[in-house]
């Protein structure tokens, strides 16, 4: 029906002067947007099939392709923009919930961009990280509140199990199923080489990756997919996922078509069955219930591994975090509303949750106020886009950050936000063998390592400028931040002064 025709947002533009008809665009587009037209002897494109993933643009040997925003427009209206109108049309057609992926794309304030970092001048010296030692290692976990001594007066090691990171970053939870085997291998190998951690997400751990266990965080979520004793003990820490920044209050739904072969085996569910993670954990309705699961997992791992509780940043986050800190968890991970996902209802992704910067500051403040900050480490996630974001998050109170979107970008993701289609042209968010093959982990892991090493260099550079030689000294050090263009309320929640103050 003509009424449901939606003009594509982006159009494929081909420079026919440059195009040599090598057809790599056609071969590489899983959406079949390109086709060679025998009769006209040239390549033609159907922009309506294009998801703007740039696979063709990147591989075109003569640089003949680009994707441009369409000039096609509705009559301009600040209230009813084109996207909203088109979404109405789509729902009129499908009668269903709109799905999308990756993080919240809407124009809410990005507080990281309103926070500025300090640097030393005259009265305190800055440090040259190329000449002086600069420490970015962090240790995550609960800290004992007192020193214990034995009968002989010697100190007793009462340090609970911890995670030791070479730099304050870890790869976020992304399940095998939502991402490919090769993506998982890339993350696992990169984490191992970097001396940090990656996270299985709720998809179990493929047996091939048990050897990366010392750098693996195994996740237990509401669907309990792939969870068994060996799995829990395979990693360095266990994470209970209560929520996800991209879809707070919502469970997960991995469609049956992605539950193929190895994914099915690893998740321990039949091939082709939908993997539905319930919205809540049905055994957790209170902090006390959470405490039971925390200790069940500690019991199952003989108290040798720290337990992380991951929540989405929501309105009451500070109070919830306080409860989690008292539940026996060693680490709290907070996921902001810009955090990515392989699939989420669009309305949830775009409208639920709060910014990580505010959540993190509120939680850190609350735990300090309640004098329980040392009981837990804080990990912040939900669109840490650069080393600067990471440094700001640490200054707001994070011990470390989860890096998700930036990591998949390193693997080749071009943020087309079509993960839910399962036809990722970059071999990341797909289980189609010929697409999975496109991500060579030998390349992928190297790019991840490069990215993290680059960030670590930058972190050291920034710290040196501040005159700080250990990341520990930066944590929660909000004096190193100044807000710009923020109102009193925002500044007070962030616990920072305005620039010029």
């Amino acid at each position, binding site marked *: 029906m003509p009424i449901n025709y939606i003009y594509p947002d982006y159009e494929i533009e081909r420079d026919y*002067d*440059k*195009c*040599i008809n*090598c*057809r*790599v665009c056609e*071969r*590489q587009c899983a959406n079949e947007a390109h086709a060679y037209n025998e009769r006209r002897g040239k390549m033609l494109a159907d922009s309506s099939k294009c998801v703007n993933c740039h696979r063709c643009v*990147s*591989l075109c*040997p*003569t640089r*003949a392709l680009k994707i441009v925003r369409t000039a096609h427009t509705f009559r301009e209206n600040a209230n009813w923009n084109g996207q909203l109108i088109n979404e109405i049309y789509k729902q009129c057609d499908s009668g269903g919930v709109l799905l999308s992926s990756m993080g919240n794309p809407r124009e809410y304030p990005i507080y990281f961009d309103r926070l500025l970092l300090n640097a030393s001048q005259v009265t305190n010296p800055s440090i040259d990280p190329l000449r002086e030692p600069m420490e970015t290692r962090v240790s995550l976990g609960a800290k004992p509140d007192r020193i214990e001594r034995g009968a002989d007066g010697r100190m007793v090691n009462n340090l609970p199990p911890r995670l030791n990171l070479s730099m304050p970053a870890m790869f976020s939870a992304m399940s095998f199923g939502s991402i490919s085997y090769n993506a998982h291998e890339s993350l696992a190998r990169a984490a191992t080489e970097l001396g940090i951690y990656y996270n299985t997400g709720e998809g179990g751990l493929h047996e091939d990756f048990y050897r990366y266990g010392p750098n693996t965080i195994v996740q237990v979520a509401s669907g309990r997919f792939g969870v068994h004793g060996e799995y829990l003990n395979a990693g360095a820490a266990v994470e209970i996922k209560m929520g996800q920044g991209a879809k707070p209050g919502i469970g997960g739904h991995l469609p049956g078509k992605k539950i193929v072969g190895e994914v099915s085996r690893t998740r321990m569910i039949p091939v082709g069955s939908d993997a539905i993670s319930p919205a809540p954990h049905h055994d957790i309705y209170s902090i006390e219930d959470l405490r039971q699961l925390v200790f069940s997992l500690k019991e199952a791992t003989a108290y040798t591994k720290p337990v992380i509780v991951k929540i989405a940043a929501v309105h009451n986050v500070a109070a919830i975090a306080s409860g989690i800190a008292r539940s026996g968890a060693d680490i709290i991970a907070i996921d902001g509303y810009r955090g990515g996902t392989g699939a989420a209802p669009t309305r949830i992704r775009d409208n639920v949750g709060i910014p990580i910067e505010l959540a993190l500051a509120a939680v850190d403040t609350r735990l300090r106020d309640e004098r329980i900050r040392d009981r837990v480490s804080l990990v912040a996630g939900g669109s840490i886009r650069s080393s600067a974001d990471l440094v700001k998050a640490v200054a707001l109170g994070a011990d470390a950050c989860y890096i998700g979107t930036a990591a998949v970008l390193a693997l080749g993701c071009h943020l087309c936000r079509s993960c839910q289609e399962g036809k990722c042209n970059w071999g990341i968010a797909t289980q189609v*063998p*010929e697409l999975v*093959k*496109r991500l*060579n982990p*030998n*390349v992928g892991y190297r790019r991840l390592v490069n990215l993290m090493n680059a960030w670590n260099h930058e972190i050291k550079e920034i710290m040196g400028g501040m005159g700080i030689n250990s990341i520990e000294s930066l944590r929660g050090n909000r004096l190193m931040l100044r807000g710009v263009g923020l109102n009193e309320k925002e500044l007070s929640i962030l616990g920072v002064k305005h620039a010029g103050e």
Partner: protein
Amino acid sequence: MKRVYVNEQWCLACHLCEYYCAFANQDETDMSTALKGVPIRPNIRVEQLGDVCFAVNCRHCDEPLCVKGCLTGALSVRDGVISIDRDKCVGCCTCVVSCPYGAVTPTEDGVVQKCELCVNTRDGEPLCVKGCPNAAIVWESVVR
């Protein structure tokens, strides 16, 4: 010595290696100008059947049947690279019949062509390797 190896596991049958190869062996420095409207004659070729695909080029064998069988002495091993002297080749194609990989190709010009690891091209190193989007083609020394 460094050779080109193809890892079937990562080959995507995108055929870019063929185009980069064809380009590497031309004097023209702009790829569009070099290849537009001309059938390419690459020295590396992708074979594909169903989901199995891989590229094949000269293996620069240690015991090269093509060199040993060459009637004219046009094929020779220079620093481990099996090279062809186009001036000497008369296109008899004995090498084509000898090569177990099908990596020497007859041409209409009356001389055969084959991969010479780009030693004489402006890049000086194999362009198929540089152009492979998935590191399926690598150029390295492997001790066997």
